[in-house]
């Protein structure tokens, strides 16, 4: 209705206030923003990675590799515990979720089961993750169904924690690490200057293990292909082969602290300290193997293989190797961050330098300004100073509200998002065009000024709502299926639909009602 209704004026004033309040931090420097009192909004528009520069990594947790490894450990546990119990084994057959153990002497089966049951640890709520069952004259040792099912999901959760610890310790700001789907992690690091470093930090599993070197069997035979069961051939970084027992004495899980230090010869080394369990195991293993070498292995690569001179019971020691200080400190960071439960594979990587982002912002700003100017000129030219001017005021309010909403929600503004913004302006004036054209029609068919303006608003409104809803549907689909920049585009489009309906229609209603009241016109200026 074309009279100056109070609630419309109030609504307009409130949206203007909202716009000013929330868009205001964008003109401040970061220092000024920090100085704002706490009750004032202080966040500006959040720029997407393509505009401020940064790295986007989509990582996939290699769950099959992790399952494989867990099954290997299961088999080695069984082998070790049966050897210690003096139960000879003829074969360990790998199955989907566990192993099947065949004994040399079936009469020992009860003894074997008892020995293996000791491996089953009961969790806090009374659940177990593995079971030992007799099947005929063989023993099935397997993960429970529930443990198999949650293995992947647990690994992803754990990986996110580890990645966060590693990346945060390098002091980069605002890194976002989120889960995507069942087996994926998205890392978004704005302003990360060296994407290669970022990738190196998340690319290493950092599984540290202490294993005995197999001195009973021949390394030459193993290299020729006859690897004894329970052992494996590993290499160091210069390619020297080692025959190492598969059984893990102590692993990085028992590490409480690692640090860069120097050895007796003033060479860079890594100092470490075990927790109670680790210290006990390490002490027992070193006491039983004095004079033999053991290997310190990181991600399948032998770092060093010192000979045990005496039992190490204190739970701490140093790893000597040919490290530079930088390598050592990176390794310490990895060790302190903890090991990834499974390797992470980079599936997608997008990196934009800060300079490129700044250029994109500039190009976006210029084209937005030019686009805006074109619309202003066109509207003023088509509908004159009054009607056109009212649309321009609506457009300005629209721009203000979009900036305010983006600042408030924290949605990222991306380069396609800028395009969405410009397009939103074009579509926003469509509401005015629909209303004005309708008014013209009505006025030409002989109605009075008030009647034609009234009819213009009423009849155009249904069309405007219908037309905007279709844009919302398109934006919704982009949210569901799009990622990154596309989602930024969907954000501006969605916000733009709401703000443009509000500003274009409301500003026109209030502005024109005011004009009617003041000027008391005899004819509609746009209808000639």
């Amino acid at each position: 209705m074309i009279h100056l209704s109070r609630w419309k004026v109030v609504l307009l004033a409130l949206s203007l206030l909202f716009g000013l309040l929330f868009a205001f931090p964008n003109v401040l420097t970061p220092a000024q923003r920090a100085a704002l009192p706490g009750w004032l909004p202080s966040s500006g528009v959040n720029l997407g990675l393509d505009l401020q520069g940064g790295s986007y990594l989509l990582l996939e947790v290699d769950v099959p590799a992790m399952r494989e490894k867990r099954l290997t450990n299961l088999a080695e546990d069984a082998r070790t515990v049966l050897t210690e119990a003096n139960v000879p084994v003829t074969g360990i057959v790998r199955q989907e979720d566990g192993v099947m153990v065949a004994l040399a002497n079936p009469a020992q089966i009860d003894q074997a089961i008892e020995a293996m049951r000791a491996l089953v640890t009961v969790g806090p709520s009374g659940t177990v993750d593995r079971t030992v069952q007799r099947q005929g004259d063989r023993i099935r040792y397997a993960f429970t169904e529930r443990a198999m099912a949650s293995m992947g999901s647990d690994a992803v959760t754990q990986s996110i924690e580890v990645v966060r610890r590693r990346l945060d310790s390098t002091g980069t700001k605002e890194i976002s690490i989120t889960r995507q789907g069942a087996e994926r992690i998205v890392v978004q690091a704005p302003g990360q200057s060296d994407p290669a470093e970022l990738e190196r930090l998340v690319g290493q599993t950092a599984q540290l293990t202490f294993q005995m070197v197999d001195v009973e069997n021949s390394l030459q035979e193993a290299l020729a292909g006859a690897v004894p069961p329970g052992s494996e051939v590993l290499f160091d970084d210069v390619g020297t082969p080692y025959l190492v027992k598969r059984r893990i004495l102590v692993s990085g899980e028992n590490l409480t602290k690692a640090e860069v230090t120097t050895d007796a010869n003033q060479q860079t080394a890594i100092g470490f300290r075990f927790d109670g369990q680790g210290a006990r195991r390490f002490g027992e293993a070193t006491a039983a193997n004095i004079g033999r070498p053991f290997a310190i292995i990181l991600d399948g690569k032998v770092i060093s293989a010192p000979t045990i001179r005496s039992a190490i019971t204190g739970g701490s020691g140093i790893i000597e190797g040919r490290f530079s200080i930088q390598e050592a400190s990176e390794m310490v960071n990895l060790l302190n961050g903890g090991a990834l439960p499974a390797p992470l594979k980079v599936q997608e990587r997008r990196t934009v330098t800060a300079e490129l982002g700044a250029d994109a912002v500039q190009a976006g700003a210029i084209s937005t300004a030019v686009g805006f100017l074109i619309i202003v000129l066109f509207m003023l030219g088509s509908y004159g100073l009054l009607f056109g001017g009212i649309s321009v005021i609506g457009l300005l309010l629209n721009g203000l509200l979009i900036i305010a909403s983006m600042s408030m929600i924290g949605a990222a503004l991306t380069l396609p998002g800028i395009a969405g913004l410009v397009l939103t302006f074009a579509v926003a004036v469509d509401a005015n065009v629909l209303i004005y054209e309708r008014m013209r029609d009505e006025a030409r068919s002989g109605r009075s000024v008030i009647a034609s303006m009234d009819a213009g608003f009423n009849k155009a409104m249904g069309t405007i709502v219908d037309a905007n809803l279709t844009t919302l549907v398109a934006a919704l689909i982009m949210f569901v299926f799009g990622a990154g920049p596309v989602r930024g585009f969907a954000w501006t489009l969605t916000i733009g639909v709401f703000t443009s309906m509000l500003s274009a229609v409301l500003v026109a209603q209030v502005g024109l009602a005011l004009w009617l009241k003041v000027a008391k016109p005899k004819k509609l200026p746009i209808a000639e």
Partner: protein
Amino acid sequence: MRGWPLIKLLPQKTNFQFVRFAKLFGALSAVLCIASIIGCFWPGLNMGIDFRGGASLEVAKPAGQVLALDDIRGSVSDLGLGDVQVQGIARRDTNVADGSTAVVRFQIPEGADQTQVVRRVEGAISGAVGEVTYSGVEVVGSKVSGELFRSGLIALGLAVVLMFAYIWFRFEPQFGLGAVAGLLHDVILVFGLIVVMRLEFSLNMVAAILTVIGYSMNDTVVVFDRLRENLRKYKTMPLREVIDLSINETLSRTIITGLTAVMVLAALAFLGGEALFGFSIALMFGIIVGTYSSIYVGAPIILLWGVKRGGSSDEPQPVKLGMASRP
């Protein structure tokens, strides 16, 4: 009150007989659509790395220096990474194509470590043309690219279905069919443009097409709204005349809004830099064909199917399309 004569794009009242030419334009649209569909398979879409996997590397020399594109192509091809594309683009800071900036696209071999492959390519480029800066890197694994492509197509399909449902719900089934025919027409022709201009088909392009779908519907809804209103108002007027009348009545708005959007997108295409060019061109073209289709595809389809008119007859009245004479 006003200080200048208003721009008049059209006379106050137009009386174009759009439906008269519907058959002609319908045939033209059909031919273009078929050509576009064929074009999508042969020569085929220029798939960006979003959808086909691989890596793209942006390489730049300082302004004024020229990159030897052939040397880059040669040295990177020697690494045996399959199809290597090297394309010169406009400088990011000045938006001028002075030959100092290029994009290199290549494939990551199955199972290879992408970090190392990218490093080798960087080494080869530096070896061929000396010191350059690498300002942007994108790597998409083959698994992810397949998924992105699939979800992109699903998004487009879903958009068409939802729009159909919306129009069906808001209007009538015949209107829905007309709207969807117009929509498919627009989408197919935008694909045709992408093929003809060798634009890169990427995630951003899918967003552009979704926007075209939204806009095309927007335009169609405005015409249909008026059509519905006029069908109620002029109960005895022949359907073809009601359609002509409705299109004429909304023509002024159609042209003003369409023109505004096209001008703004032109600014975006030519000032927004390399990254927005393809995106803006596709949007601009989509808006033009969207405007055309709401006149020449959507409404005539309704004519073909007929429509229920309140009171006068309950059965839809199919009307033969043709150059039949008007009184």
